[in-house]
């Protein structure tokens, strides 16, 4: 009995190790397949204080768009932000923002004032209700929405220059052509 207990650490490690091995085959920034190609859930969010327009699911139809979930408290959003600014400046694709779970009334506004605003419209999702419908797991997260308003792709974590060039840009071009 005592001897078999000694194998416990090894068995625990083998289980954890097989999870690691399995985890390697998955891309952590890929959306679970069952959510892809579904229409965006209906929502209608108010504007972030200091801005005129809010964001509703209807705004995300008619053209290929990016929906970016961000928050002033999110460090990775800070890292991602310059790239979004650049994409907005190059007018690559319309970017809409979902300002997620801000604590202070003006946090979102101040963050955008400080670092710049790449978004066409921004919805204020203060209580995170819409984010739950969207299946948001953390910030930042970016959805690629097609002309019919369906989710075609989701990126978890910050978009990098490379990820944009290799994955998102070709995808968006393809969606725009079709």
């Amino acid at each position: 009995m005592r001897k078999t207990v000694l194998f416990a650490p090894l068995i625990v490690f083998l289980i954890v190790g097989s999870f690691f091995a399995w985890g390697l085959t998955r891309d952590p920034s890929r959306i679970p397949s069952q959510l892809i190609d579904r229409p965006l859930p209906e929502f209608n969010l108010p504007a972030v204080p200091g801005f005129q327009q809010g964001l509703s699911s209807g705004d995300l139809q008619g053209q290929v768009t990016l929906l970016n979930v961000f928050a002033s408290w999110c460090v990775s959003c800070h890292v991602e932000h310059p790239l979004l600014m650049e994409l907005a400046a190059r007018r690559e694709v319309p970017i809409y923002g979902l300002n997620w779970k801000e604590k202070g009334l003006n946090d979102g506004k101040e963050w955008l004032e400080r670092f710049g605003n790449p978004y066409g419209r921004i919805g204020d999702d203060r209580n995170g209700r819409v984010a739950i419908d969207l299946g948001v797991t953390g910030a930042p997260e970016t959805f690629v929405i097609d002309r019919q308003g369906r989710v075609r792709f989701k990126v978890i974590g910050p978009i990098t220059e490379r990820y944009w060039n290799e994955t998102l840009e070709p995808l968006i071009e393809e969606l725009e052509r079709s």
Partner: protein
Amino acid sequence: MIPEIGHFALILAFMIAIAQSVSLLIGFNRADARFAAFGGRASIVIFCLAGLAFSCLMFAYATSDFSVANVFENSHSAKPFIYKLTGTWGNHEGSMLLWVLILALFSAVLAMQARAAPVKLHMLTLGVQAMIITAFIAFVLFTSNPFERLFPTPMNGEGLNPLLQDPGLAIHPPFLYLGYVGFSIPFSFAVAGLVLGRVDSVWGRLVRPWALIAWVFLTIGIALGAWWAYYELGWGGWWAWDPVENASFMPWLAGTALIHTVRVVERRDAMKGWASLLAITTFSLSLVGTFLVRSGVLTSVHAFAVDPTRGVFILTILMAAIGGSLTVYAVRASTLSATGRFEPVSREGALVVNNALLVAACATVFVGTFYPLFIDVLSGDKISVGAPYFNLIFTKIAALTLAIAAIGTLLAWKRANLRTVLRSMAPIAAAALAAGVIVLVIAERERVAGAFAVMLVVWLAGGALIDIIGRTKLFRVPLKDSLARARGLPGAAWGAVIAHSGLALFAFGAAGASLWNAEHVALMAEGDSAEISGYEVTLTSVEQFRGPNYEAERASFMARRGADEFEISGERRFYPIRGMETSEAAIRAHRVGDLYVSFGANQTGRGWPVRLYYKPFVGCLWWGAALTALGGLVAFTDRGRKPARLRRRRHASPAGMKVAPV
């Protein structure tokens, strides 16, 4: 040509490491001293070659040789010289080479200590170490070669991530690696000890300094990372439970359990299986952390560029090293028999409880870190575990651990009288209670949590104080005798007192900075004032200037509180090469805390968004961490050369360490 020299040096080191692994194993089997001699010298040669390879890469960085792909991707000619040098390890390939260099350094030092250790134990330990080196050099050569050339040679490089161009972050990785890699030696000793069935007080005496020095480096490395996050990221926090932070924290928790348990093995010849398992676990967690950071199984801001082949390679190393060592443990641990028996109420007993709590804390962090991965694999759902989980569970376990640590040092080895110990702690308990009540009365917010935190801090620091008073018999014998006793105390005892006081200070800083943090946001133009925690902060001027490789805006503030008046200034820097912005918060320690001001861009023309914080007691975090590391260092100087039994006979046993004859 210089990069090729580095490349060849590394290949040569790889060959020698293979030869060394084989020869040490053969030498061990045949008990042949010639093989052992080769194995020992090989370690030193490998270290020299790894040093040469690393110098060559550093030279390529220093001279901005953009024909080397790694330099091109991570450096730029306009970068300040010091960051050209530190950029050597600011990327995946270079940092792995640094990892190999440190590994080789530790092995070489171990090789030179051959006389201090039993021959077979030393040979096998060095052999395990050689296998680890072989694996990591192979990893660098086959998946992460920093010496790869680029043709045609680009005119200039892509620049180092500006966040990494900072003194705090430049020296943070080497310390972290010294810690991670340092734990490889206790690991190798554990494997060798298990194979030989020799985990005893001699083993404990050999392992303890290694475990301690690795732990000290890891403590410093983690603290530097937290400090950097505090002043550089501009959000006023210092720890976010990010997977990469957790990756460094888990080995620290396991290592903390290890340095305590190894002491038990050394002094009492008990807890042997557990000590060897902890030694294996600690380095395994370092390896898992490496896997986590470099394979891309979890997303993180800190993570390096991801390449699946690297993940597979590291996982293979992981499986071989951890799976192999745990198999050795499973098969051999039953051969270890403890001679030192102890009662539940004893210092050993307290350490068992603390070990259990530390392991539970470590498991909490582990589960929180990997839960998203497990869920993803099992159900395909993507979830994230945030700070609330860690804050809820981890803080409770940590508080309990610290509470027990306070009385643990007071308990005698083998069998202790809990009543005597609790009686000696009575004044401290009273002081803690009084401090708690004071906090309840004067605190403006978070009274209950604050009272608990302060009671815990007083209890822990008081435990250290009572310990030192008891050991030196202060107030009971003349002061001169007490001082003589203080000088005669073993480094391990002083180390424990210092490190526990440091932890108390750290816990105080953590509690104060998170519970009583004041925050205020305002849109300010030049001349405007805002108030925070009794400070009147005026934005005096904002000016543009140009740094060596960035453009910047510097805001100067005048802060006034009562008669005190001082100026602080912060910066926002824009690095055009990477298109990134960084901030240098304006921080000034004043009274008991830090006044912390960060500011944003004046986009509207109406003013700068300014975020003001007053963070009380935050300085205690850094001093507490430094004191904790110092405690480890003091304990490190205690070599405990004499076998425990001899020493006990020669000294009249110091108070609190009285033991019945074995």
